[in-house]
C-alpha cells in the first residue's frame, strides 16, 4: 500500500513536470497527449489520496496494535492530531485535495502565461505534497533533523521528477513515433532533450543525497550487508545499475538520432526510445517498491547486523606480521596503478576499451594480492553490539562465570595455563595477549556460544544465558586490560589514551545513583580506592586539595576497599572530607578496579573521555608532592585534541 501511494505520488509529480518540460503546443497530437496526461493527473490525485487514506488506516491499526482501530474514529483522530506522522499526513493530503480541486476547475489556457501558471501550479502542488513526506520519515528522528529532512526532500523530489517523468515521456514518444503523430515530433524531440538534461541533474542529486542519507542511516559495511535495511539499499543499487545503463544508452545512442531523417532514422529511433524509456520506468517502479519498504524498516544503524561472510578484512592483522604487511603493501600499490589506468581510460578516448580492460585486470590482480592477508575469520555475530555494557558489575558477574566454566582450561588469570588445557590438541588461547585486539566482542560471543570444535573448546550457548556470556566477555576484556595496564605509571602520558575505564554506578547515602559516565565530557575523575588506616594521610591531603581540584575541573570519588556501608562515619569528623565517598556499589568497583591496580591504596586518573590515564599504586599519585597531582590534571586539561570517547564494544 505504501508502495502504491509512493508510486502514484511520484507518477503524479513526474507527469506534471513532464507536461511543463514539453512545453505548450498547438499540434493536435501534442494536445491530445497533454489532455491524456491531465486526465491521468486527475486520476492519479484521486488514487494517491485513496492510497494515502489506506496507508493511514493501516498505520493506525499498527500503532494501536489492533485491527479494528483502523475504523475507530477516536483512534484515527489520535493518530492524526497527536503524532508527527499524522500532522504530516494532514498537510500532504490537504495539498493533494487542493491539487484535485485545482485540476477539476476548467481553466482557459490559450495564452502562454495562463498555460504556464496552470501547469506550473499543478507541478508545484504535486512536488510540495510529495516532498513534505520527508518530514515524517527516518530523517526526522536523526540529530540535526532539519538538515536530514532537507536531504531527504531533495532525494524524494529528484526521484519524483525523474522516475515519474519516464512513463509520460515514453507515451509522448510513442505517439510521436507513429506516422499519424508526425506533427508532434518536434515537441517530442524537444521534450526528450530537456528531460535528458533534467534526468542527469536528478540522478546526480539522487546519488549525492542518497550517499548522505546512507552515511547517516547505515554508516558501516556491517550495517550495509548485515541488516534488512542495508540489504534493501543494496537491492536498490543493483536495480539502479541497469536503469542507469539504459539511460546512458538512450542518451548516447537514441537521443542524437531523434532529429535524423524522419522515415528511416528519426521515427524508428523514437519508437525504440519509447520502448527503452518504458523499460526504465518499469525498473524504476520496482526501485520505488524497495524505497517504500525501507520507509518502515528500522535503519541499519539501529539494527543488529548479521554478518553474512565467513571472513572480514582488518588492518589489525598486519600489526605484528611483516611478511603479510609487505604483501598487502605491494597489492595496494598494484591497486593504485589499476585505479590510475581506469582514470586514464575515462580521459583518453582512443584506446578506451583496451585500457579499461587492462585496468580491470590490474585492479583484480591488486585485490588478489592485497586482500587475502587482511582477511580474518568472521562469524554472523561479529558486528553485534554487546547487550551488556562494559561495567564493573558485569565484570564481577563475568568473573564468577569465568571461574566456574573457563578457568579450568584458560587458567585463573587467562594465561591459557589451566590444568584442563594440557590434554587438548591445541593449547587454549592466552586471553591476555594483544592479538585479542583483532577480535570483536561479537567474535568472542560466537566462540563462547558455539565453541571452537577443532580446538576442543566447548559451546556454552546452552549453559549460559546471553547476558552471562556478555558478562564473561566483559571480564575477559578486563583481564586483557589488566595485563596491559601493568606498565601504566602514576604520570600522564600526553595524547595516549587507550585504557578504557569500566563504567560503574554508585551512591553516597540517600542520593540517587550516579555513574562514572555522568562525568564524561565534564570532569576528570580521580578514582581513589582506599583502605583505613593506611590511607588516612593521603585522604587528608586530598581533602585539603579538594578546592583546587574542583577548580581545575576534577572530581574525587573515594571508594572504601572494605565496602563498609558506614564508611563516612569511619572516616570521622577531621579532616573534613567533602568529596563523594561511595557507600553503595563499592564492592563491584573495588573488585573490577583492583584488576587494574592491585594495592591496598590505589588511585586512577580518568580523563573526560572515560580513559584511565595514570595509575598510582600504594602511596597514591604523587603523594610526596601534592602539587604534582594538580600538574597531571593540568596536563589533561591542556590536551588539544581529546581522544574520541570509547564505544560500548570491544575492538
Amino acid at each position, binding site marked *: 500500500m505504501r508502495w502504491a501511494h509512493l508510486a502514484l505520488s511520484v507518477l503524479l509529480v513526474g507527469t506534471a513536470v513532464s507536461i511543463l518540460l514539453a512545453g505548450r503546443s498547438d499540434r493536435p497530437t501534442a494536445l491530445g497527449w497533454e489532455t491524456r496526461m491531465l486526465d491521468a493527473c486527475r486520476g492519479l490525485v484521486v488514487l494517491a489520496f485513496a492510497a494515502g487514506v489506506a496507508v493511514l488506516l493501516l498505520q493506525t491499526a499498527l500503532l494501536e496494535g489492533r485491527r479494528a482501530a483502523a475504523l475507530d474514529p477516536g483512534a484515527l483522530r489520535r493518530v492524526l492530531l497527536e503524532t508527527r506522522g499524522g500532522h504530516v499526513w494532514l498537510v500532504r493530503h490537504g495539498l493533494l485535495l*487542493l491539487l484535485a480541486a*485545482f485540476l477539476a*476547475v476548467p*481553466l*482557459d*489556457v490559450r*495564452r502562454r*502565461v*495562463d*498555460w*504556464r*501558471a*496552470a501547469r*506550473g*501550479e499543478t507541478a*508545484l502542488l504535486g512536488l510540495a505534497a510529495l516532498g513534505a513526506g520527508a518530514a515524517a520519515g527516518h530523517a526526522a528522528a536523526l540529530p540535526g533533523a532539519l538538515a536530514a529532512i532537507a536531504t531527504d526532500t531533495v532525494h524524494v523530489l529528484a526521484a519524483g521528477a525523474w522516475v515519474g517523468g519516464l512513463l509520460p515521456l515514453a507515451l509522448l514518444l510513442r505517439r510521436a513515433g507513429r506516422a499519424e503523430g508526425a506533427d508532434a515530433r518536434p515537441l517530442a524531440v524537444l521534450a526528450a532533450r530537456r528531460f535528458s538534461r533534467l534526468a542527469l541533474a536528478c540522478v546526480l542529486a539522487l546519488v549525492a543525497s542518497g550517499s548522505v542519507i546512507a552515511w547517516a542511516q547505515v554508516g558501516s559495511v556491517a550495517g550495509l550487508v548485515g541488516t534488512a535495511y542495508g540489504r534493501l539499499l543494496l537491492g536498490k543499487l543493483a536495480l539502479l545499475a541497469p536503469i542507469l545503463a539504459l539511460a546512458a544508452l538512450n542518451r548516447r545512442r537514441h537521443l542524437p538520432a531523434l532529429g535524423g531523417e524522419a522515415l528511416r532514422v528519426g521515427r524508428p529511433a523514437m519508437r525504440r526510445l519509447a520502448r527503452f524509456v518504458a523499460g526504465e520506468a518499469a525498473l524504476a517502479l520496482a526501485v520505488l517498491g524497495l524505497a517504500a519498504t525501507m520507509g518502515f524498516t528500522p535503519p541499519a544503524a539501529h539494527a543488529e547486523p548479521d554478518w553474512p561472510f565467513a571472513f572480514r578484512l582488518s588492518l589489525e592483522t598486519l600489526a605484528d606480521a611483516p611478511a603479510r604487511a609487505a604483501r598487502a603493501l605491494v597489492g595496494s600499490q598494484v591497486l593504485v596503478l589499476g585505479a590510475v589506468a581506469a582514470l586514464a581510460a575515462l580521459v583518453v578516448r582512443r584506446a578506451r576499451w583496451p585500457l579499461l580492460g587492462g585496468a580491470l585486470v590490474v585492479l583484480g590482480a591488486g585485490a588478489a594480492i592485497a586482500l587475502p592477508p587482511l582477511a580474518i575469520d568472521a562469524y554472523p555475530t561479529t558486528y553485534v553490539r554487546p547487550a551488556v555494557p562494559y561495567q564493573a558489575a558485569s565484570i564481577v558477574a563475568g568473573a564468577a562465570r569465568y571461574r566456574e566454566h573457563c578457568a579450568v582450561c584458560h587458567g585463573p588469570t587467562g594465561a591459557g595455563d589451566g590444568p584442563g588445557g594440557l590434554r587438548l590438541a591445541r593449547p587454549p588461547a592466552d586471553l591476555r595477549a594483544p592479538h585479542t585486539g583483532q577480535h570483536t566482542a561479537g567474535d568472542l560471543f560466537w566462540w563462547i556460544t558455539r565453541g571452537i570444535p577443532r580446538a576442543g573448546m566447548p559451546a556454552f550457548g546452552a549453559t549460559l544465558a546471553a547476558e552471562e556470556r556478555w558478562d564473561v566477555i566483559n571480564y575477559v576484556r578486563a583481564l586483557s586490560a589488566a595485563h596491559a595496564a601493568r606498565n601504566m605509571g602514576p604520570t600522564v602520558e600526553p595524547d595516549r589514551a587507550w585504557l578504557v575505564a569500566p563504567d560503574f554506578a554508585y551512591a*553516597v*547515602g*540517600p*542520593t*540517587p545513583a550516579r555513574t562514572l559516565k555522568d562525568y564524561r565530557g565534564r570532569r576528570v575523575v580521580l578514582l581513589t580506592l582506599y583502605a583505613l588506616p593506611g590511607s588516612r594521610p593521603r585522604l587528608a591531603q586530598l581533602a585539603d586539595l579538594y578546592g583546587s581540584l574542583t577548580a581545575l575541573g576534577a572530581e574525587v570519588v573515594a571508594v572504601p576497599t572494605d565496602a563498609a556501608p*558506614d*564508611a*563516612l*562515619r*569511619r*572516616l*570521622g*569528623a577531621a579532616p*573534613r*572530607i*567533602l568529596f*563523594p565517598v561511595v*557507600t553503595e556499589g563499592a564492592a563491584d568497583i573495588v573488585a573490577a578496579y583492583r584488576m587494574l591496580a592491585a594495592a591496598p591504596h590505589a588511585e586512577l586518573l580518568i580523563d573526560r573521555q572515560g580513559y584511565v590515564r595514570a595509575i598510582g599504586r600504594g602511596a597514591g599519585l604523587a603523594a610526596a608532592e601534592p602539587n604534582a597531582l594538580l600538574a597531571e590534571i593540568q596536563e589533561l586539561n591542556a590536551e588539544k585534541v581529546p581522544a574520541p570517547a570509547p564505544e560500548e564494544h570491544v575492538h
Partner: protein
Amino acid sequence: MRAWKAAALLNLALLLGVGWGYVFWGARTARLEQELRAARGAAAAGVERLWQVAGVVRAIVPEINVLVITHEDIPGYMPAMTMGFRASAPKIHEAVAVGDAVRFTLQGVPPNVVITAIEKTR
C-alpha cells in the same frame, strides 16, 4: 477568471497559510515558555516553603553554625548535592555526628533556608 490569476491566488493563500501556521506555533511556544518560567519563578521565590530531606552529614562547622550534608533531590529547589546548610539554633547539630544518615527539615524563603530540625535515621 484568468488561469494565472487563479494560480497566483492559490499560491498566495498557501503562503498565508504557512505564514499563519508559523506565527501561530511561534506564539504558542512563546506562551508555553512564559508559563513555564512563571511557574518556576513562583516555585523558587517569594513564598515560605518547607521540605523533609534525607541525607548524610559530611561535616559540622559549629563556629558558623553550619552542617555540610550530602542530600537527595529537594523538589522544586535543588538537585542532589553536597552543600552546607545553616541551622536555625546553635544546639541542633549536637544531636548528630559526621557520617550519620539523617532526615532533616528545611524551612524558609529560598534561598534563605535553614535546618529547623534534624534526626538520625539509623
